[in-house]
């Protein structure tokens, strides 16, 4: 891991903390975009170029745009009302630390025993080109690939079903233009 990767990683962490910490949802969303881009950078540094590109396009592009759209649509301000209790924050942080502390050592321990030669051998061949991944997708994982279409279709149908309303005559809410978003 070189310095650049390290910096990107730090960016990812900091932006992640920002997502959690910033009170304005909009800022959180932007932080998330940064985070996703940083992760894309990490993919690239791991030779998963196709995924890096996909990440930028799908996540940082499509998904985040959708999120931002909804945020704008609902015209949300920062979280109102009282703050979350200190106890809750502390508990969450402690629990988070506990999880990291109990999960990381076994992972590290497991791979520290692995002989470096095999690993480096493997490293050579794991190039995430479009071609390689495409081959995998259409041979070994073709069934899953087809099934994934099902997921997308559910996404479409579900969104349609939820967005469509029978009683359209409801008065428009002050919050925004909801009824006919379909």
């Amino acid at each position, binding site marked *: 891991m070189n310095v650049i990767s390290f910096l990107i990683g730090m960016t990812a962490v900091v932006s992640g903390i920002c997502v959690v910490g910033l009170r304005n949802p909009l800022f959180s969303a932007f932080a998330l975009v940064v985070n996703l881009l940083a992760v894309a950078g990490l993919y690239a540094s791991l030779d998963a170029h196709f995924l890096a590109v996909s990440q930028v396009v799908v996540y940082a592009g499509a998904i985040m745009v959708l999120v931002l759209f909804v945020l704008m649509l609902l015209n949300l301000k920062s979280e109102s009302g009282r703050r979350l209790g200190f106890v809750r924050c502390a508990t969450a942080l402690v629990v988070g630390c506990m999880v990291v502390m109990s*999960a990381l*050592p*076994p*992972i590290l*321990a*497991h*791979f520290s025993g692995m002989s470096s030669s095999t690993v480096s051998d493997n490293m050579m061949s794991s190039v995430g080109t479009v071609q390689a991944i495409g081959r995998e997708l259409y041979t070994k*994982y*073709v*069934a*899953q690939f087809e*099934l*994934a279409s*099902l*997921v997308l*279709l*559910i*996404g479409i*149908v*579900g969104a*349609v*079903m*939820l967005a*469509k*309303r*029978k*009683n359209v005559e409801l008065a428009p809410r002050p919050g925004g233009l909801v009824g006919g978003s379909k």
Partner: protein
Amino acid sequence: MNAIASFAPILVLSVGSLGYLLGGRAIENVRASALFAVSLIAIAVWCTLGLSDTAAAAGFGIVVNSGTRILAVVTCIAGLVSIVATSGSLEGEKVAMLSEYYYLMLTSLCGALIMVFAADFLTLFIGVEVASLALYCLCAARVDERRSSEASMKYFLLGCFSSGFLLYGIALWYGATGSLALSAGGTVAVNAPIVALSFLMILVGVAFKIGLAPFHFWVPDVYQGAPTSVTTFMSCVVKVAAVATLVRVLASSFGFTELWTVGPLWILSVLAMTVGNLAALQQRSIKRMLAYSSVAQAGYMMIGLVVAGSAAEAIGATLYYVIVYCAMTIGAFAVLSAIGPDADSIDDLKGLGKRSPFLAVCMTLFFLALAGLPPSLAGLMGKVYLFSSALSAEFFGLAIIAALNSALACAYYFRVPVAILSTRDDIGEPLRVPVQATLAIGLCAVAVVVFGALPENLLVIVRDAAQSLVVR
């Protein structure tokens, strides 16, 4: 060719359900939609029964053996019966769009089948997501109902959170073995801590779907908030599929004997039955009560998996109990939905004996079965099977806690038959139960009685299934 053929049930459901999207007005009424769904599921069942076993390695992410076949059939039939049973009350529930509703229902069922058949973790995860995503939407099917969308949101957020853990577990499994296949355990020492970590993460995801405490919090809220028809469907289909997943994951990847499989399962099982029963004691809403009860019942089911390392029979016990549970729960929810879209409080059941003796008798049978009391022996026999396998594996503490819990459970199960038997002033007119509901409820009632009174055939099937599931 064989491998593709083994996709038949999934294909039938996934492709067939497109009919709802394409069929337009032809399928806009409830009866036609339901009939179409039923026929699709029936075909799927038929296909499932016709599937031949696949070699584990050869399939496209799918494995067919007598175990998965039975589980798939159970899932399908559970879905079928719940769809039939509740189809009559859909209009009353003001479900948003019928064709989409049925499409999502069938797709969810399809996802459950994928979960059951999955041969690798990727397929498994896709199955989980297909089943869940469809259900997230279905929960919100009463779009104008505040509780419905609230339930949906909770389910969605919590579900995604837990599937994050599931996914991380899968990632760790991949990290440990270098493969996504379920049964790639040969390349790694199974008792490595990373595998334990992986299992725990996966367990969290699956336990959430099963509704084991302390991952059960969505269960009461969602069961109560979702339309009764959806609750009926998900209470059985999701649970069967998730338990099947857990069985498969344990049997093919992690084994039943490690401390880190037995221990967490023991804790979750005990917590689920205790928390479920204790919380159910306080409920006035039948749907919430049934929700907590299903948490407790899930706890019982886990007994079989906890002890499977020492008693090979035990998985059969879990399967038997899952089947019985489906019959009991579908029946109970179906009766509830037959009473009315907003029937929820226990007081709504008062006078049921007068309004519809048939429903009253069936409901009583279901609740007696849930409580493990005769004459609907299925519940009792399920417990016989589970507890005796626990005892034969020398898990005495577990068996005793479970037994005490099942006694405690009588306290709240008892309230429903009591309400049915008692009367109030304004019991309302006699209920007109739709034919399809009558059929489905009757079927459940028969199942509850017959599976208990003459369990031998089912036992043979279940034992066979258990054996084929355990063979790695």
